[in-house]
């Protein structure tokens, strides 16, 4: 069932993509069916269902889909939110031809993501990892008519694909060190792996992949850019699932690399920086989706940080936060999408007092906001309590309390802005025209928000069913406290209360903050840097292209022959030798055709009369035919005579239709002549050296001996052409046929155009 869940996604994606027209008639209300089938497959999947295919056994490559606790938790998040988002997306694009395209892409993404969650082998994981990058690219650029969407998609792809390359390199290094790509095998060798001198490279490269994917500082800027995607995509990929892939991989590799140098320092350092940058930036935005995007960056930072701390308590908190964040952020994004669609804007300064107009959306927004701010009994409260407690538990990490506090107050501010201000804040414009969104659209945020309340109330199920199995697959330790809706009055609750108070102040002064943030534009943003690097690379490529592909045929001929000459000279310089003098004596009648050939060739080069040049060309050909006859090649001579005659006829036929060539000013004539003369001397030297120095072991001896007994022919040249090397001759005939078809096509299109006139 594990492979079935992944396969179903791709199958549905393909079917919907191919049969777009037929599916256009299916009502929106059925859009959740494919996702539900996948979810059912994920739910009934058992750990014994692992699929192991050997991929390239010689290299130890295998394709492994298996399920451990962590994979199951992640897959359940992907599949549950997938169902809701696919229904929501159908409502979002209801009646538009884009609906089927979006659903198809979303299912393609879901398949890639489930494959990632279920991968038991690092190379399998990498393949799915890249698929998620590609589907993210396609989905960000979904509105392909919009230049901004295309630019954002490209930016996201370059960042995540560059990280993907680093990840591949890291995986290969780790595979070399550990002797396997199988996660289970690697985990069993964790101690030796951590002591290997080159492990730092593997850690750095793999983390680079994680950080780019999970939008960690300084690569975080692609995520806000990705908000160009339709809102269902932002909610699904760029908040709940895909951006968590980096965090997921870090958690997955914790048993292997957890004790390696750099691992936890990097995760803590970059995670903390990301929390600070994302947390502050979230409060400086006015666009609902941008607020949520930066808030997501901050949450991803918190997750990295907790995984970096790496104690059972911290990992436990990270898993709780993973669930809670997917629920409340998915809900808030879909709420923002409903508001955007119904009220026509996402600008918080132009929104307010929508609670009466959109009561269900408002309820979902409020519940999700309460979870985000960490109100008692919500999932957000549980995860925040656990995170604070895990950090306070160890003296080394206590300084991170400041970072967590910032994260809490930023989350609180965002929660008030999106969950309260939009619906109960002061109206800043007429709201009469706003209507509640369609049921299929409000279902997603409502279900997600209610789940954020239900999860802690069913704390036992949450702990035992989801979190414990996931924790067991990445650490052997046990957390001090399970997930609970309430932890009693203690220091952490005090910190929470303080963060709420500051969050409220921040909310009151939001306009000032935005104003202050706008003034800080001097600081170069990642987007600007990325655009600069990108333009630089393009300009460099263009200058190289202009240099080597300037469109001048003459330049190409010159460069090619110069390169050949240079190679020859180098080759000769490596092993110089003087040709031995000797050979066959020259007879007077042989000199005659050769002299004619040379004179004719010079005339052809010098003459401005095309007909004279072509006639000289004919003389060259016939002179060569004479040489062939003399040296025992009658077949060649015959062919040469016929072909040369035909060539002259063809030339004359075409020349008749061309203007008489006139000398054109050309300052390159003399340099070209000198260069050509030099090449000619070299070729002459080469020919002479070959004839006089090469040992004459004839390759053809076999052909000569076998011609009569095997080929049943006495003319060896003939037998070679039609028997021993018959395939070459077939190729030759094909070339002629293609040339003939090409000529015919050129003249046919001309005739047709003339007929049209």
């Amino acid at each position: 069932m594990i492979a079935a869940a992944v396969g179903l996604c791709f199958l549905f994606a393909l079917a919907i993509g191919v049969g777009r027209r037929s599916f256009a008639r299916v009502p929106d209300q059925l859009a959740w069916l494919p996702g539900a089938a996948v979810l059912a497959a994920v739910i009934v999947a058992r750990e014994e269902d692992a699929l192991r295919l050997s991929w390239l056994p010689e290299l130890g490559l295998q394709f492994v889909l298996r399920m451990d606790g962590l994979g199951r938790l992640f897959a359940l998040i992907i599949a549950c939110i997938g169902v809701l988002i696919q229904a929501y997306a159908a409502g979002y694009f209801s009646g538009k031809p884009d609906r089927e395209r979006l659903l198809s892409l979303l299912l393609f993404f879901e398949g890639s993501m489930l494959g990632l969650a279920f991968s038991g082998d690092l190379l399998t994981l990498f393949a799915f990892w890249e698929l998620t990058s590609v589907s993210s690219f396609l989905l960000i650029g979904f509105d392909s008519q919009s230049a901004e969407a295309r630019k954002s998609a490209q930016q996201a792809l370059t960042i995540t694909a560059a990280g993907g390359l680093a990840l591949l390199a890291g995986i290969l290094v780790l595979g070399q060190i550990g002797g396997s790509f199988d996660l289970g095998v690697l985990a069993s060798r964790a101690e030796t792996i951590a002591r290997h001198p080159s492990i730092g490279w593997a850690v750095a490269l793999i983390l680079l992949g994680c950080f780019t994917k999970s939008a960690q500082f300084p690569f975080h800027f692609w995520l806000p850019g990705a908000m160009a995607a339709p809102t269902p995509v932002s909610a699904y990929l760029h908040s709940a699932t895909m951006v968590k892939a980096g965090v997921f991989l870090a958690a997955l590799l914790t048993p292997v690399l957890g004790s390696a140098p750099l691992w936890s320092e990097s995760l803590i350092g970059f995670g903390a920086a990301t929390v600070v940058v994302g947390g502050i930036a979230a409060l400086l935005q006015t666009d609902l989706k941008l607020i949520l995007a930066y808030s997501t960056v901050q949450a991803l930072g918190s997750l990295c940080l907790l995984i970096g701390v790496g104690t059972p308590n911290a990992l436990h908190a990270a898993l709780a936060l993973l669930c809670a964040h997917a629920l409340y952020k998915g809900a808030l994004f879909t709420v923002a999408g409903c508001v955007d669609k119904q009220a026509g804007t996402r600008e918080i300064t132009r929104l307010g007092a929508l609670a009466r107009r959109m009561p269900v959306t408002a309820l979902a927004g409020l519940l999700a906001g309460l979870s985000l701010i960490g109100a008692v009994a919500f999932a957000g409260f549980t995860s925040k309590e656990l995170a604070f407690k895990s950090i306070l538990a160890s003296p080394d990490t206590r300084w991170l309390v400041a970072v967590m506090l910032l994260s809490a107050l930023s989350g609180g501010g965002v929660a008030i802005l999106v969950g309260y201000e939009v619906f109960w804040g002061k109206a800043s414009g007429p709201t009469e025209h706003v209507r509640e969104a369609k049921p299929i659209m409000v279902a997603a945020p409502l279900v997600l928000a209610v789940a954020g309340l239900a999860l802690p109330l069913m704390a036992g199920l949450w702990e035992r069913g989801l979190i414990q199995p996931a924790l067991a697959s990445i650490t052997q330790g046990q957390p001090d406290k399970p997930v609970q809706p309430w932890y009693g009055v203690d220091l952490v609750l005090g910190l929470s209360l303080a963060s709420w108070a500051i969050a409220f102040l921040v909310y009151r002064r939001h306009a000032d903050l935005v104003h202050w943030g706008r003034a800080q534009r001097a600081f170069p943003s990642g987007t600007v840097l990325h655009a600069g690097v990108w333009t630089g690379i393009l300009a460099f490529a263009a200058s190289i292209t202009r240099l080597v592909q300037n469109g001048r045929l003459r330049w190409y001929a010159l460069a090619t022959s110069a390169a050949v000459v240079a190679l020859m000279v180098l080759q000769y310089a490596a092993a110089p030798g003087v040709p031995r003098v000797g050979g066959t004596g020259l007879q007077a009648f042989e000199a005659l055709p050769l002299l004619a050939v040379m004179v004719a060739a010079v005339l052809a080069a010098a003459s401005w009369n095309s007909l004279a040049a072509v006639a000289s060309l004919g003389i060259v050909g016939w002179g060569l035919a004479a040489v062939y006859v003399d040296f025992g090649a009658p077949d060649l001579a015959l062919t040469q005579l016929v072909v040369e005659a035909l060539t002259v006829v063809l030339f004359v036929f075409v020349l008749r239709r061309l203007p008489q060539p006139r000398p054109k000013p050309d300052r390159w004539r003399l340099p070209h002549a000198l260069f050509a003369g030099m090449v000619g001397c070299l070729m002459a030297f080469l020919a002479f050296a070959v004839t006089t120095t090469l040992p004459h072991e004839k390759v053809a001896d076999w052909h000569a001996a076998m011609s009569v007994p095997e080929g049943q022919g006495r003319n060896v040249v003939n037998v070679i052409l039609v028997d021993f090397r018959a395939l070459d001759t077939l190729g030759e005939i094909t070339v002629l046929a293609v040339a003939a078809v090409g000529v015919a096509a050129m003249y046919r299109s001309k005739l047709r155009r003339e007929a049209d006139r």
Partner: protein
Amino acid sequence: MTVEALLSVAVGVLFATGLYLMLRRTIVRLLIGLSLIGNAANLLIFVAASLRRGVPPIAPEGAAAPPPEAADPLAQALILTAIVISFGVLGFALALTDRTVQATGTDDLDQMTEEEPEP
């Protein structure tokens, strides 16, 4: 002076004139140059296989193989193929030239490039 020496000089002259013509601006001269270089290459292969005067690689009536002093049949087979293929290419190039000159109104390669729209 040996045959090999004179043939080598001929190879050199054919390459030099062919290359010079290929570097000219007029398209017809380029094609003549192409043809010359083709001939030059064929002659080079012919010279590189050993030169045997007057004995074609044909087994006489009743014999099982050509006489041992016969010329190299493989080089001849290769050249034969090359001659035919260069003829095909030349025919195509001539047709293309004809059409291009009619379409652009010039036989100057440099001008053709300039008339190409910027990508």
